[in-house]
């Protein structure tokens, strides 16, 4: 994770001086993580792109509130998480099942990996997606913040407005669910490899 980059500071300074083009550098450096984080919470790639774009614009608007003595990435990712969570609750249809089907032609045509490996990988992804889909939005956000963004539990508790004990319980439950789903995928993998 790009936790601290002195280039960020230069761009941030320019943004504070109303040079909007400086946003480009921040987008370039943080877009991948922003996009993936948004996707993991909202479950829709297009929606995730929209959320990430929103987050950059929101960060620019609030750049005066950013403390330059601290790294930019965690501050920015909190904006991404909050926007994704809000959108998720808005849509009330997080995690579409569309796009989950295996494209066999594509697997068979891929020269890089064998169909069994690719199939196993897809099964695993499907399981992870399914496990995420079944989590309530706030628990999903907690999971992503803890295990994808490596945020401390206390900070997650503050961000999501839930007691620390509740956050710990969410994480335990989410992890158990993922463990169960991926264990099944592992079984499928072993079975596939015969």
């Amino acid at each position, binding site marked *: 994770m790009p936790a601290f980059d002195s280039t960020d500071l230069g761009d941030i300074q320019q943004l504070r001086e109303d040079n909007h083009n400086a946003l480009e550098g921040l987008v370039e450096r943080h877009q991948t993580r922003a996009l993936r984080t948004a996707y993991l919470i909202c479950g829709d790639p297009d929606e995730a792109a929209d959320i990430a774009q929103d987050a950059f614009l929101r960060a620019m608007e609030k750049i005066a509130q950013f403390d330059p003595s601290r790294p930019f990435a965690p501050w920015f990712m909190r904006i991404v998480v909050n926007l994704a969570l809000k959108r998720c609750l808005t849509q009330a249809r997080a995690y579409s099942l569309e796009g989950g089907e295996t494209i066999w032609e594509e697997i068979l045509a891929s020269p890089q990996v064998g169909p069994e490996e690719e199939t196993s990988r897809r099964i695993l992804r499907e399981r*992870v997606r399914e496990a995420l889909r079944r989590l309530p939005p706030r628990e999903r956000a907690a999971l992503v913040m803890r*295990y994808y963004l490596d945020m401390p539990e206390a900070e997650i508790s503050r961000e999501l407005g839930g007691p620390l004990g509740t956050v710990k319980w969410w994480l335990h439950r989410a992890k158990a669910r993922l463990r169960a789903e991926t264990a099944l995928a592992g079984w499928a993998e072993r079975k596939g490899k015969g």
Partner: protein
Amino acid sequence: MGTDRLFMYLDDLAAAETGSSKDLWPDVRTRLEKQIQMTARKQRITRAAAAGVAVLALIIIGLVLTPQGRVLAGTVYRFFIRTDHLAPAVKPQPTRWIAPDLNQAGGDAGYSELSMNALSSLDELRSRVPFTVMAPAVVPAGYRFQGGFQEENHVVLQFAQEDDLGFILLIQSGPGGKALTLTAVSEEATVESLQVGENRAEFVSGVFIRKADETEFSWMEGEAVQQTLRWEANRRMFTLIGRGEGVSKEILLAFANSLTDQGKLVQVLPTPAPLSGVEEPFPLRLEEVEKTAGFAAVLPSELPDSYQLMGGAYQPEGKVVELWFSERPEEPVLRQGLTIRQVVLTEGEVNPLPRFVLGTYGVDQSPQVQGEITETRVGEWPAQYVVGTWQLEETGAKWLADPWMTRLRWQTDTRAFQLSTWGAKLELDDLLRIAASMDQGAE
């Protein structure tokens, strides 16, 4: 599972779904330029509005200070408070169906009102709130009660489909409670008048939607969106919101008509696996089932009053015939009654009807077989009886001794049978009586 591996799983999924080379900057720049233009326009409007206010203030001062001005002001005032027939007619709106400013309400179509409160059981809710919490006496097949929570002067009960793709929310206010934003529908909505008990109800099929590239909510009507049934009783607002496949006006009406302040919720999970067809688990007539199966089904000559054979199904795998007898044939959408499963046994083959296994099954544990299986007899044949069903939970499943779901299985030399109740209060004696009335010798 290690943290590193969890990170890897999540990153792999997100990378696969979002692509690794997506450049957001062109879109961000386009939006940024639009935003800058809008800000400039807003500033111009603000300046113009400020100038307008200043001019208006001068006019008002002029009107108040001069006699001509006071006369003119009086004329203008009377024009606005006229009550003659030329005043535009007010378009009548359905009771309390409102289209609130959703953006002002937090921009989330009211779903933030369903904040992620911990869910409570029905009994807990009833002991906590100062008004009577109504609950359905029956739950449509395929739905399970997840729990409920209190939101200001409201109680919300959540029912989800087994696959989590659909849900029904029952939102009920305390006396004099106002509607939640969540329950809002557009003034443009097509409202159908219905009856829930003695109360007039309104039904709407539609939802406020905000697409990814839009800033405003718009009202969308039609099937496969959201269905809302709403009525007022004893100064309390009741709203049923249903989403997902299988939710229909008829289901919401049946659900609404079964509300009671007594007793417990009837759990009807797990839904019996449909033997043929997903939409209608019992689509065949008796003759069709028998023809498909190649044998005559054994039927009971004794059944409780009101029970009626509604249909059947045939499961080729295992060659199982299943017949559905409804306790409430007038409410066909409610899966409340009795199923009879039967299979002709061939020598040397295993009985395909599953044996009873009670206990708990979870992520962190192996199945724990426990609970009480009552050994009994149907005529000369040994039989087993259990009370309850499997209840799905976050971390697995456990056996729930639900008295509204009972099972009796037995096996003769030639056939295996299982009677299962779904939301019907039939106990061991009842099931034994039904079983005894079945002609065991039929082939």
